[in-house]
């Protein structure tokens, strides 16, 4: 008992001692003492030495109120020599903060004068970090819960290892320079300027909104993105958009590391209200902000506009290729001018699941660009089916015909997997040929009929079937399917169809019939969007009946005839699906 008490009281003493040591003996005290010693050695007269003798280590802090929230910067407690010009070249933390003409420092009579005095600006205004911290782990922002580690100097332990080397370097500080120096093309912030240019030249502005700069609505608003996220998240979101959101359809753009860095620095500088503006000025600016595209001189040509608006950041046009969206080289043969114009104004009015943003250019520009694209009517030189396939089809359907072309991820519905014999062989040859020649309405499959005359289309289909599908076609048992829907459309029929649809179909096709049911993400190819009016309008009743009753081979669509759906039920479902889609206006393809 006494032994236990003795041990316990000793443990208490030791714990107390450790806490005491931790609270009264600091690293920063040792740094300051080292500084005093070195300064004493450098001092020139007795008075300076006496001053130093009288000094004891203490917390040095600067309170900065001019830049946003009040900051308490205690960096000078360790970096006590930051403003002492005699310590240039010493090891950190006792090193003079560099002087640089680029920062506005001036050399007068052999003595540097700082433009940004630490007593006015503090440290964290430029460097970030946790100003109140007195230990490296906290003050430098190595703590993963601190949102602002020292910009360009500290990478937190949980950041992805392959990004860390990219996220170091003094250029990241430009993001903070730009909080006050907001002028475009400010000489001190070349990376911010470059990132801003890339934001427009890579068409980021089409999807993303930045207040006073762009009006995109497809992607997240980036007005305050630099305040919300650390540089590693910004880098990751650009080079690997699906890392954080599996359903993101943001394309992977073709960017060099230097481009990504500039974009990250530019985005890091977007922090909502910057230091240069007052809240009143900001209020006025947000209400007055109407983003007007630069006025175009009259008679500007569509070709210049297409280049200027950087369509090739995504699309292929001639030799330039963004690798994200379809080829526009033969656009004039595939679509007509009205279609292109309407598609410019709202891409989803023509291809309902397109990810192309609706750009807010003036109508004259759309007309000029549509005119230019509609004028691209020179067909490719005739070639063998294999070459034609690689030239026209492989971009979407993939070089191996597996539906994994380089733009396939960004297309909805996805390009057909031509190696799936189950599907290819279950469809009559005429239907496959029809898809090649007249395209698939409401999707990105164009009508190749104008480029491929019937005999070449036939040869192409033969090439696809022998090269990719390979399995020989077999005779299909005849399906008992009506030519036209025998059930007349009525309110009762549609209601019954909806009831069956919700029970049987909504798991995959979704309650809204938009193909986004709860199971849809696990299914390849994805369930059909049945609200795609162009697609549904082009379907005959016969095909709808066939797909529902006998299923679609090579996909997850089962044969519902096996699950007890009668012709009457299917007729009701077809009436329901038709009732969802109004008759679309406007043609899908170029007039032949």
């Amino acid at each position, binding site marked *: 008992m*006494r*032994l236990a*008490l*003795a041990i*316990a*009281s*000793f*443990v*208490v*003493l030791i*714990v*107390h*001692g450790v*806490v*005491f040591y931790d*609270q*009264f003996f600091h690293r920063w005290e040792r740094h300051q003492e080292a*500084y*005093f010693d070195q*300064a004493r050695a450098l*001092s020139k007269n007795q*008075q*300076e030495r006496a*001053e*130093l003798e*009288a*000094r004891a280590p*203490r*917390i040095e*802090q*600067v*309170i900065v109120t001019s830049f946003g929230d*009040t900051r*308490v910067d*205690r960096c000078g407690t360790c970096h006590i*020599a930051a*403003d*002492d*010009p*005699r310590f240039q070249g010493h090891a950190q933390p006792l090193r003079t903060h560099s002087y640089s003409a680029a920062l506005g420092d001036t050399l007068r009579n052999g003595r540097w004068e700082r433009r940004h005095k630490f*007593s006015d600006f503090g440290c964290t205004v430029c460097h970030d970090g946790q100003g109140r911290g007195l230990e490296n782990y906290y003050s430098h922002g190595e703590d993963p819960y601190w949102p602002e580690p020292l910009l360009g100097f500290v990478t937190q332990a949980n950041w992805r290892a392959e990004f860390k080397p990219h996220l170091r370097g003094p250029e990241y500080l430009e993001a903070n320079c730009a909080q006050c120096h907001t002028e475009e093309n400010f000489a001190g912030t070349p990376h911010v300027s470059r990132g801003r240019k890339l934001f427009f030249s890579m068409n980021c502005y089409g999807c993303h909104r930045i207040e006073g700069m762009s009006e995109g609505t497809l992607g997240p608003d980036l007005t305050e993105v630099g305040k919300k996220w650390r540089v590693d998240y910004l880098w990751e979101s650009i080079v690997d958009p699906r890392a954080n959101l599996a359903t993101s359809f943001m394309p992977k753009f073709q960017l060099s590391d230097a481009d990504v860095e500039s974009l990250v620095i530019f985005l890091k500088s977007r922090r909502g209200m910057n230091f240069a503006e007052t809240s009143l000025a900001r209020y006025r600016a947000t209400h007055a902000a109407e983003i007007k595209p630069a006025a175009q001189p009259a008679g500007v040509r569509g070709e210049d506009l297409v280049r200027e608006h950087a369509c090739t950041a995504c699309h292929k046009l001639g030799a330039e290729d963004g690798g994200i969206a379809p080829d526009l080289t033969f656009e004039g043969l595939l679509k007509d001018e009205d279609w292109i114009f309407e598609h410019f104004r709202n891409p989803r009015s023509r291809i309902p699941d397109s990810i192309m943003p609706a750009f807010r250019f003036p109508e004259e520009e759309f007309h000029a660009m549509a005119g230019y694209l509609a004028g691209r009517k020179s067909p490719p030189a005739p070639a063998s089916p294999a070459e034609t396939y690689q030239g026209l089809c492989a971009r979407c359907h993939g070089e191996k015909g597996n539906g994994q072309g380089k733009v396939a991820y960004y297309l909805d519905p996805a390009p057909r997997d031509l190696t799936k014999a189950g599907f290819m062989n279950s469809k009559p040859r005429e239907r496959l040929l029809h898809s090649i020649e007249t395209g698939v309405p409401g999707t990105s499959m164009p009508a190749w009929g104008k480029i491929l005359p019937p005999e070449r289309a036939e040869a192409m289909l033969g090439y696809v079937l022998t090269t990719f599908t390979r399995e020989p076609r077999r005779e299909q048992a005849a399906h008992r399917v009506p030519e036209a829907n025998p059930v007349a459309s009525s309110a009762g029929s549609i209601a019954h169809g909806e009831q069956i649809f919700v029970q049987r179909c909504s798991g995959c096709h979704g309650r809204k019939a938009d193909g986004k049911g709860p199971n849809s993400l696990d299914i390849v190819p994805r369930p059909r969007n049945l609200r795609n009016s162009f697609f549904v309008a082009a379907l005959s009743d016969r095909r709808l009946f066939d797909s529902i009753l006998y299923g679609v081979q090579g996909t997850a669509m089962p044969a519902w005839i096996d699950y007890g759906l009668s012709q009457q039920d299917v007729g009701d479902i077809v009436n329901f699906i038709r009732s969802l889609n109004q008759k679309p206006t406007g043609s899908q393809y170029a007039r032949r």
Partner: protein
Amino acid sequence: MPVAQRPRMTAAPSEQEDMPRRRLLSWFTSVGLFGSAVLSAFSNFVFIKPRATYGQPARFAIGKPEEFPPGTRISLDARRVCIVREGGKMAAISTTCTHLGCIVGVSDTGFACPCHGSRFDQDGNITGGPAPKPLPWYKVSLKPNGDLEVDKGVEVMPGTYYNV
């Protein structure tokens, strides 16, 4: 046999050794408890005065001595002190009126408060008005990097100059 032997073998030596052992244990216990009591008491007294506070810092750098040529009387309104240099002697005099806390202005004859007409001479002594006390002087010192530093936390006797 071993059962019978055990009490005799253990009891006899333990009677004698138990006392020093017991004393040693209580000594250890008291050192432990007393030691931690001293440490906590010491820490408590030290922490009565915070090492750093928020709000405008009491201690601040005002620049190099060369920036204040002899004869200067500059009022730093943001810091509420007046920097005085006479020859090689420097001082910092508060510009907060001791009456109701207005900022006093620097005049030819000394300081004048705009609120209630208190007047002070060049050294901050009262020459008129409702002010109850003279303006305090603050400590001026030199930082190791050559900057002058005023510490508003430390008042000095009026007439105490810092020699540059």
